[in-house]
């Protein structure tokens, strides 16, 4: 239920033209929002002007900084993919009756949610090689294998980001799976489905409707957290937006300007991905949202929808 409301809010397209707030005014709700945003941007413009930024330098350096966008996006996309895999395994572990699976996933979420991401990045980058060389000293592995413990900064960052976000998303996935009512599980059992079949065919498809909106949120948060990766090390090929801003700002004593450019780029980037997220949510919630023209905001309408959905499915 809660997730359903979120989907509608996230979609933002279902607002009917006869919004109650519009009663008795000549301006539509949408126009008012546009006016508010115009006002805010005007205010931002004034702040910008008062701060006396070196606009010419920002223009000149913009290209250098934005070149790092692909690094940021690649790190975020690869990390979110592995985070989803880890979260799926983690949540199944959290809901498992197997003591090993439950214990391991419990420790995993506790540790990776309980320690700072920056510490985890440093641990993967610095501690793994020491373990590798220690194993090599003890003659347990060869020098070739020990080399694999020495990860590049980007790879270490991807691993740390995946583990960290996977731990947070484990809870999201767990909640999503639990949101599928016990009646569904019972029905699947009654049909003689195995655990695997039940999960793949009945529970997970319905859980994903609940899981996708917060996962989108996590992805947007992750885009910004990729900046932490640049704190360890890399070659210029792997400089992300933030690292580029840092070195460019330091070169010309324009740190503040560089950070403002970076903020703008991250903002634009997250706005683009928010658009994708909205599209995806609309798509996933298809079939659960009333078509345009039918009043869907009546109290209890959603409960009715839910009921009719259940009827459709059984």
């Amino acid at each position, binding site marked *: 239920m809660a997730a359903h409301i979120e989907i509608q809010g996230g979609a933002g397209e279902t607002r009917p033209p006869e919004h109650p707030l519009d009663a008795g005014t000549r301006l539509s709700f949408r126009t008012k929002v546009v006016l508010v945003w115009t006002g805010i941007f005007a205010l931002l413009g004034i702040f910008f002007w008062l701060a006396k930024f070196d606009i010419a330098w920002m223009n000149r350096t913009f290209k250098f900084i934005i070149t790092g966008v692909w690094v940021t996006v690649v790190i975020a996309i690869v990390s979110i993919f592995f985070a989803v895999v880890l979260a799926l395994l983690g949540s199944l572990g959290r809901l498992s009756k197997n003591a090993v699976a439950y214990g391991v996933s419990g420790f995993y979420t506790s540790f990776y949610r309980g320690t700072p991401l920056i510490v985890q990045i440093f641990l993967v980058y*610095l501690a793994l090689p020491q373990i590798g060389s220690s194993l090599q000293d003890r003659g347990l592995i060869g*020098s070739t294998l020990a080399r694999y413990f020495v990860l*590049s900064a980007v790879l270490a960052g991807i691993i740390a980001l995946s583990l960290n976000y996977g731990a947070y998303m484990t809870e999201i996935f767990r909640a999503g799976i639990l949101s599928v009512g016990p009646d569904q599980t019972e029905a699947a059992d009654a049909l003689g489905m195995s655990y695997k079949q039940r999960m793949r065919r009945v529970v997970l498809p319905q859980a994903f409707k609940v899981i996708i909106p917060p996962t989108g949120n996590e992805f947007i948060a992750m885009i910004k957290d990729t900046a932490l990766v640049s704190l360890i090390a890399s070659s*210029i090929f792997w400089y992300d937006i933030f690292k*580029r801003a840092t*070195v460019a700002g330091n070169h010309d004593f324009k740190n503040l300007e560089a950070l403002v450019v970076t903020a703008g780029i991250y903002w634009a980037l997250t706005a683009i991905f928010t658009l994708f997220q909205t599209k995806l949510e609309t798509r996933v919630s298809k079939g659960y949202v009333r078509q345009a023209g039918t009043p869907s905001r009546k109290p209890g309408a959603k409960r009715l929808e839910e009921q009719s959905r259940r009827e459709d499915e059984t």
Partner: protein
Amino acid sequence: MHRSRLKAVTALLGVLALVGAACSKSSSSPGGETGTPAPTDQTVCASADLTAGDLLAKICESGLIRFATDPVYPPQSSLNPQTGEYEGFDIDTATEIAKRMGLEIEWATPDWTVLTAGGWNDRWDVSVGSMTITPERAEVLYFTQPYYFAPAGFAVHADNTTITSAADLAGQKVGVCGGCTYEDYLNGTLQIPDYTIDFAVAGAELVTYKTDKPAIDDLALGDCVRLCAAFSAVPTLQGAIDAGKAIKIVGPPLFYEPLAVAIDRSAPLDAASFVAALDEIVAQMHADGTLTAFSMATYGEDLTIQQGA
């Protein structure tokens, strides 16, 4: 449904393949500029014993020397956003070292604290990063002889009239990079082998930053707004003044730090001949005036001769 899922998986594999390709590409091509190897008959690697099985042999065999630099310290090391090239005194020195070794360059830019802690795990070979020789660092790193001596001092806001000497800093807020030798100096704990240091500043209230730059930015906000003084290398302070920051340098430098090329002690291969070769190159660059020329070009003065101390 099934086909679209297949498409998604293929797309993801595509992305991963791209990352993989990029990874292998980055290791083979140096990010920044590449040093042009000198004629092979004069270089260190040309005369090195490649069968020795030590670090020097391995590096010469690979044809590539991997320098670590922290490009947030102009005029020593920075990245020019207009050209995408590293530049500065350290970069010039490192490029010349690679040339005399007869090797191509690859740059790595680790965090400064990762660099000074040693245990590089073979991620890069050498630091030419204006690193001060201290007893703690010498436990984990080998040092060559100093390639130059950086003057350290402090600046106050341009409007300040009350702070005219190091003694006036007592009780004042002084900005300094955390975990660096300047912080040790202000705390009175700095040790440099074979150098006696006169601790002229006492009782200052230290505010530590990740690098020197934010301290200078904070100082430029106004006289004693956030900081009353910022402690740094004199060339760094001068660079900030040249960039238009409203600060001024007070008095002559308080001490000169010997800065050297560093190599990881924990490297599994024997580093002795490599360290000796680098030390020899630094000595040659001192003798033939190369370092002096670099110093004049970058700092406008010759910082390669030991002063004070």
